[in-house]
């Protein structure tokens, strides 16, 4: 977990995002009809501020009690320099959804980003949605009960390279390494499940929290963005207790990661650094997010003997120890094994991170989830990995890692079919800020 303190949510002043112009179509949907302080037409406080003024904030003590009773997680504070969902360990439930922006011009795009901000603020803090009068459907789906519980929800919102085309006048501001996702030799990328103008990742303690949030966000943004593809994911409990959760190949996933509590490691590996890298200044506080949807050919994998599996990965399946180590978090000693007699040179772990001085700067912050959905044409299970990783520089990090992995033995058992390159936006710093303000304002 991160070093951020999990502070209880205290009701604060109503946030005041920029007001929509009167009479213009707005995506700010919080008001469901005529009953409102500050309806769209001319309200200086703005429709969204009116919504927040009408939401009863969650009582932190009540939320904590309920969390203890129902297994819901505490709220994760939304505001900060960085988006709150990047550093924490993977949640039990997630959804990754790619969207096309359908906003018609930059003003509407800004509107859209402000609406997503407002919804994320509400959903991550929790609270009682405002009742409506006799003039509309309920303001909330009710899927989480009368009071929306935060349940540790984090919202990670990112932009893809195609947002920087000629629609919104943003071409000159495109992040340097933000391109459509590169296809690697073993990939089988489906365009219908790849890329997108926008990415939203929702992570929380329970599936219903994730789905409630997704439904809420899409309801409030229908005019401004339309989903392209989506995939749901989950994290298994670590077994044995105290180890690292497993993927659907039966191996622990994400054992080795840079220390999220180390600001210097995060500054050199995760956060975009405009000053050092030539990235546009607005990206400060952001991080490149690479999503890779990777099918695992699990029926085939289960027919492979354990020695072969373990040498392809580089770890023992049961304990997660590196083949040359005696504990889960032992650091493999490749220097003492230069010809790969213990951990093969082609082991996934070794290729991905050779642990040399030269490759240190290519280390990724990995945040993988399992997915499981449906069947293929021969009745085999469609399941595998939603691999997400955060980094400062896609070329130096993800692409370098993925290049080293070309032709690894593991390729026979996986099939990357989608995902994309995105820039996770800088954090929303406070009530007056919104997603993408430094890009759009």
């Amino acid at each position: 977990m991160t070093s951020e303190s999990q502070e209880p949510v205290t009701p604060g002043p109503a946030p005041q995002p920029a007001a929509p112009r009167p009479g213009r179509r707005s995506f700010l949907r919080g008001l469901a009809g005529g009953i409102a302080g500050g309806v769209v037409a001319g309200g200086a406080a703005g429709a969204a501020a009116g919504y927040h003024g009408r939401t009863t904030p969650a009582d932190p003590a009540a939320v904590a009690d309920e969390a203890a009773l129902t297994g819901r997680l505490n709220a994760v504070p939304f505001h900060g320099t960085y988006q709150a969902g990047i550093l924490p360990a993977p949640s039990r439930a997630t959804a990754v959804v790619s969207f096309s922006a359908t906003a018609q011009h930059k003003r509407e795009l800004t509107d859209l980003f402000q609406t997503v901000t407002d919804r994320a603020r509400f959903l991550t803090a929790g609270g009682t949605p405002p009742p409506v009068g006799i003039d509309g459907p309920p303001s909330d789906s009710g899927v989480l009960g009368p009071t929306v519980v935060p349940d540790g929800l984090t919202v990670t919102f990112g932009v893809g390279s195609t947002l920087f085309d000629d629609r919104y006048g943003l071409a000159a501001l495109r992040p340097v390494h933000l391109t459509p996702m590169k296809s690697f030799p073993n990939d089988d990328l489906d365009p219908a499940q790849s890329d997108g103008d926008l990415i939203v990742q929702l992570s929380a303690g329970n599936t219903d929290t994730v789905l409630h949030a997704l439904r809420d966000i899409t309801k409030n943004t229908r005019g401004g963005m339309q989903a392209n593809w989506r995939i749901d994911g989950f994290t298994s409990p670590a077994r044995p207790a105290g180890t690292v959760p497993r993927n659907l190949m039966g191996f622990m996933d994400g054992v080795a990661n840079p220390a999220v509590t180390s600001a210097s490691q995060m500054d050199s590996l995760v956060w975009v650094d405009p000053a050092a890298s030539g990235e546009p200044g607005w990206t400060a506080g952001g991080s490149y997010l690479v999503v890779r949807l990777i099918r695992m050919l699990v029926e085939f994998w289960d027919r492979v003997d354990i020695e072969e599996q373990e040498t392809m990965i580089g770890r023992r399946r049961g304990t997660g120890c590196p083949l040359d180590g005696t504990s889960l978090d032992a650091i493999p000693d490749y220097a003492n094994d230069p010809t790969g007699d213990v951990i093969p040179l082609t082991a996934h772990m070794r290729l991905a991170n050779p642990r040399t001085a030269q490759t240190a700067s290519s280390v990724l912050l990995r945040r993988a989830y399992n997915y499981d959905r449906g069947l293929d044409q021969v009745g085999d299970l469609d399941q595998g990995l939603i691999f997400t990783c955060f980094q400062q520089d896609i070329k130096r990090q993800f692409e370098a890692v993925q290049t080293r992995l070309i032709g690894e033995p593991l390729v026979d058992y996986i099939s990357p079919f989608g995902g994309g390159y995105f820039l996770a936006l800088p954090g929303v710093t406070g009530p007056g800020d919104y997603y993408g303000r430094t890009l759009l304002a």
Partner: protein
Amino acid sequence: MVMRHRRLPAAACTVLLAGLAAALSACSSGPGQPSNVITVSSNQCGGRWQVPGPGWHTIQISNEGTSGAEIDLTDPANGAVYAEIENTGPGTVNPITIDFGSGSYALLCLFNDFSPLRGPAVTVAGHVAGSKAVLPVTYNDLIPYAKKYATEEEAAIKVLAAQTAALAAAVRGGDRATARRDWLTAHLQYETLGDAYAAFGDFDTEIDGRADPTGVSSPQWTGFFRLEYGLWHGQSLKSLVPVAGTLNKNVDQLAVWWPTQQVPLADLGRRAHEVIENALQFQLTGHDDYGSGTTLASTAAAVTASRVLLALLHPLIAPRYPQLPQVCTGLDQLQSLLDKEQQPSGWWVAESALPSAQRQAIDAAAGQLLQELAPIASITEPRNTASDF
């Protein structure tokens, strides 16, 4: 609104009350506040109750009568409604939560089988804004609109009858191209009638029924989609003569049946919304494309149907729904996106052939429009008020 008499077991409601007591203390302003449970029955509507002051408060309405009731929180000056709870059973307690601004409030109790009662007025002092009340639309309000709508529909059905007669003649005439064109004309006219909430009863199944329940080979399948299937899947026009004839006959029967019907008052506003929901579900998905590739045209017809209803109900909706102009903009935007897919030949790009950007733009416009249309059903729902009786 249909008043239903509903009873709940007393034991369950006791439990309900206890649970709510805990919720009450979480909602109330602090310890030592007077209980905000207000008792209503068929001979008294609220007694003396108070609002602690401006701001968000929840009042609990305890139905201690012997029948079901609707309880409204109203502005006694004009009967405008802040909130309502419908179908409360005897022995139940239900909350009403609003932002109490400065002004007067009174409960209105509408017990089944009893005259409406308005309770005493409660005043909140000062100059603070709160939740807004909406003047309910009454049954009486809706009657002239229902009559006007029925008359407009009657005229439109007559136009349709002439078109299905021409269509039947074209099929008998043996020219597929003419038959297809006449099919499109008549089908789009039908779609502009805006059948929703079973407006046309069984006629819709006969005239515009899908193949889903019966399968495309079933002789039970009749109507526009059946004819479309035949015209675009190479069935001989000779074999389609009875299909077109039956369609024409059913439309003639619809024209006779329609004037004998009363339009359900609750459905008028709902239809403006529902026709677009149906369009999203069946037309924009391509589900209802039986070969002609004209579901985008059908969607445009649904937009027209919604427009007609909104224009009809405009005097009722406009004062109650500040976002109405956005609905109109939304209809225009969707219309304009759809119209781009009509080709110079008069035929249409099939929904399945839409490039992704156009597809998403249309989905976005339809989705946004539906969010804006949804409140209209609630706003135009007929409600009982004291003056009705």
